[in-house]
């Protein structure tokens, strides 16, 4: 498809096609999508470590309520205060959802590999690309800064429901400057992701190389492309929502604050706003965001699995169709977060139907993965193990969606640990497994060195068992009515569940410790790993046709690969059992 856009874009990218000089341009303010991709991943690494530590503190407090967690409770040196717990929870959620699950699989791997997989020399808009990272970085700094402001960071949860989040410090500690910084941070994040999404879309549509028809794009590229379309719409709704929230907080407007609220016996001056407006705006972003986090995982798994089953993935077109269907449906289901929010109960039914329907494409995809393992020549590596693990946890997490999608059952389960277990499995753990799989698979191409497989397998085994021990029990105590977002469980009917919380805490610390193996492996291999051959996994897609690992500045050393077939050409019965997408030599 030769469009005027394509030419302009091509020109734009040609402009910069000589490698930059100097440390700053090369490693810090680089226009190279590969550097930006690594920067995103490093940011995600810092974020995930932060978020994980926060979750340890929370679990410690829940498992051992009277344990003195020392200096960690700023309000009180010897024990975690309720507000500090909620602040940890809010920051854990925000950091993980925005700065890990969105940046790593989408912005990180996507930036590095999408242009290569479509055979482009760089992103369509390299300057936007750089801007997108640095804006995101700024957002992260802003968020973390709120730990150091008086009364600490926001405590209204990653969903920041108004008016708690909108009214200001009257609503309690954490609702002062901390909450404002939260809103600013998320607004900045939206800008960053919008720039990224535009870039991904333009690159996919206009910079594909010779013969790279849409149908021949790797699944990962398809996933990133779909994700960026979702993101473009989702973040462009969250951005104004955050701006309105900021205005409510600092400019005295009342978008989300109704009249006649009383805090500490004082009537507030706001009037005319609607708390439900925030919920609708937030979840219109929030539910697609779940798929922004998981769809790249779909793509990465579908991309990696065939390389280790050594056979084509079942129904590639079906798979891509399902991903698109999920992306589309994700915009019709946001209300299932609001069944009990006081919106018209009839709309609950309207929202629950597409929510249940979305399980159909999800089921198809899962079955396609499982079916693709049948009769395979399965090669067990850290990467393939995490793919298989992904399928397992995605099933475990997805199934519980059946319950929460139904308003009647949600009437009981809403706001319990059942929900926490559900989204941690399906969104958190599954997406993390996708990230791990991608890391083990692509690391050789990204850093030119192999990771240690033995450590990788240990990492998988411990993590896989660990996450089941943490998150499965959450479903049980959820059924028993254990309410989420409680800093301690004082209610009589929750007392019998405390041992379960202790168990989950121990499991969480154990699993967290297992991640140290990964970090060690990551850093050691980066500098000491054995040099990587150009195509260690015998994979087909273009990133493995690049002349070197890591690829040269323009990815293909001045040449433009010609693609003759799709990426799914495994299991051929000749001298080699796979056909590279760019088999040609000229």
């Amino acid at each position, binding site marked *: 498809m030769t469009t005027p856009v394509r030419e302009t874009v091509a020109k734009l990218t040609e402009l910069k096609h000589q490698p930059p000089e100097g440390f700053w341009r090369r490693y810090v303010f680089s226009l190279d999508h590969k550097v930006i991709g690594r920067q995103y991943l490093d940011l995600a690494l810092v974020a995930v470590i932060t978020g994980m530590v926060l979750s340890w503190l929370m679990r410690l407090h829940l498992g051992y309520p009277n344990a003195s967690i020392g200096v960690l409770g700023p309000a009180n040196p010897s024990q975690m205060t309720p507000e500090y717990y909620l602040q940890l929870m809010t920051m854990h959620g925000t950091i993980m959802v925005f700065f890990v699950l969105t940046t790593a699989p989408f912005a990180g791997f996507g930036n590095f590999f999408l242009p290569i997989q479509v055979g482009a020399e760089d992103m369509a808009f390299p300057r936007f690309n750089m801007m997108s990272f640095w804006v995101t970085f700024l957002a992260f700094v802003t968020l973390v800064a709120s730990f150091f402001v008086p009364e600490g960071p926001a405590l209204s949860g990653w969903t920041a429901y108004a008016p708690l989040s909108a009214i200001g410090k009257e609503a309690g500690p954490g609702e002062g400057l901390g909450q404002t910084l939260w809103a600013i941070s998320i607004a900045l994040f939206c800008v960053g992701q919008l720039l990224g999404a535009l870039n991904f879309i333009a690159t996919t549509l206009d910079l594909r190389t*010779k*013969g790279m*028809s849409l149908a021949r794009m790797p699944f990962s590229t398809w996933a990133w492309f779909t994700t960026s379309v979702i993101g473009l719409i989702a973040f462009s709704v969250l951005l104004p929502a955050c701006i309105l929230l900021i205005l409510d907080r600092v400019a005295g407007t009342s978008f989300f604050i109704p009249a006649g609220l009383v805090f500490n016996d004082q009537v507030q001056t706001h009037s005319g706003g609607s708390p439900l407006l925030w919920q609708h705006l937030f979840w219109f972003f929030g539910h697609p965001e779940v798929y922004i986090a998981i769809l790249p995982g779909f793509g990465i798994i579908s991309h990696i699995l065939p390389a280790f089953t050594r056979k*084509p*993935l*079942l*129904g*590639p*077109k079906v798979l891509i169709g399902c991903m698109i269907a999920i992306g589309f449906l994700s915009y019709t289901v946001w209300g299932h977060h609001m069944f009990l929010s006081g919106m018209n109960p009839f709309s609950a039914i309207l929202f629950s139907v597409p929510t249940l329907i979305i399980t159909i494409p999800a089921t198809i995809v899962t079955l396609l993965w499982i079916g693709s393992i049948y009769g395979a020549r399965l090669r067990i590596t850290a990467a393939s193990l995490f793919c298989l693990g992904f399928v397992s946890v995605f099933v475990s997490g997805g199934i519980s969606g059946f319950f929460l999608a139904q308003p009647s059952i949600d009437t009981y389960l809403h706001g319990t640990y059942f929900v926490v277990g559900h989204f941690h499995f399906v969104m958190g753990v599954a997406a993390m497994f996708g990230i791990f799989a991608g890391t083990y698979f692509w690391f050789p191409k990204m850093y030119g060195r192999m990771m240690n497989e033995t450590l990788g397998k240990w990492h998988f085994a411990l993590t896989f068992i660990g996450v089941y021990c943490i998150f499965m029990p959450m479903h049980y105590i959820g059924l028993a009515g254990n309410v989420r977002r409680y800093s301690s469980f004082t209610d009589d009917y929750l007392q019998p569940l405390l041992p379960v919380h202790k168990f989950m805490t121990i499991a969480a610390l154990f699993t967290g410790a297992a991640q140290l193996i990964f970090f060690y492996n990551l850093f050691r291999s980066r500098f000491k790993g054995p040099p990587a051959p150009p195509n260690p996994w015998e994979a087909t897609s273009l990133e493995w046709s690049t002349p070197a690992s890591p690829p040269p500045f323009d990815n293909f050393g001045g040449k433009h690969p*010609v*693609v*003759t*077939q799709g990426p*799914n*050409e495994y299991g*051929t*019965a*000749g*001298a*080699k*059992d*796979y*056909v*590279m997408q760019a*088999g*040609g*030599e*000229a």
Partner: protein
Amino acid sequence: MRHHSAVAALAGLGVLLLVTGASTGAAQESHVGNITGHAASGKKLYRRYCVGCHGPDGDGNGENAQWIDPKPRDFTAGLFKCRSTPTGTLPTDQDLFNAMSRGFVTTNMPIWEPLAAQNRADLVAYIKTFSPRFSTEKPGTPITIPPEPAATIEGILRGRATFQKLECWKCHGPAGHGDGPSASTLTDSKDEPIRPYNFAAGVPRFMCGATNQDIYRDFMTGLDGSPMPSFADQLQPSEAWDLVHFLRTLQPLDTPEALIWKQWVATHGSELKPIGPDNGGK
């Protein structure tokens, strides 16, 4: 869409044989060694691997053709470069099979080793269905290649003389870099501009294979569809072998021939008349 497993293939084959088998017999099959290829299953593979460049109709107008140079082969003309058979005759199934397996160096034609021999045989069978010639004509009988004599400096010098005499250099250039005076004027059978082969490129391979026998075959059969003619009538086998040995010296490699040549040039370099028009007429 992707279940081209043996089972499915055979099933499809069975069906197609029932439908079309009887009417068009031989043109639907290929015989490579003891493998029999079937066009019906070849078609599936073609649609999957080849159609992108060679096009659904085998006319070389696939979606990628616009970007590819030299252009993908047009199977409808029934002209093939790399053959073991005399010029103007059809290639043997083995020729097509070898060409496909080998890929064409310095072009976009990949090496198809990843496909099982059976699959490649099937593809050969299907490719043959594009040109009516295969249903009307028989393939030519492969030329006989006498055993290769040892390379000697004399032989190489004779070969060099032949290179001059037969004006190979007009197209391939004095140094065999494909930059001869008339190089720019050449067009192939479809009037597409075509560049004479550069012996220094794609080493150690030649377009139709890497062995001396392959080179011998190249100019004794000619590359049909390209301006490269057959010199079967002008050359005796011994001259042909001399020419092969000389061509080897044009490759930037330490082939035995090149070593002999370099050694000689080191001492007698001065006596050497440059290849080219100057002493052409004499």
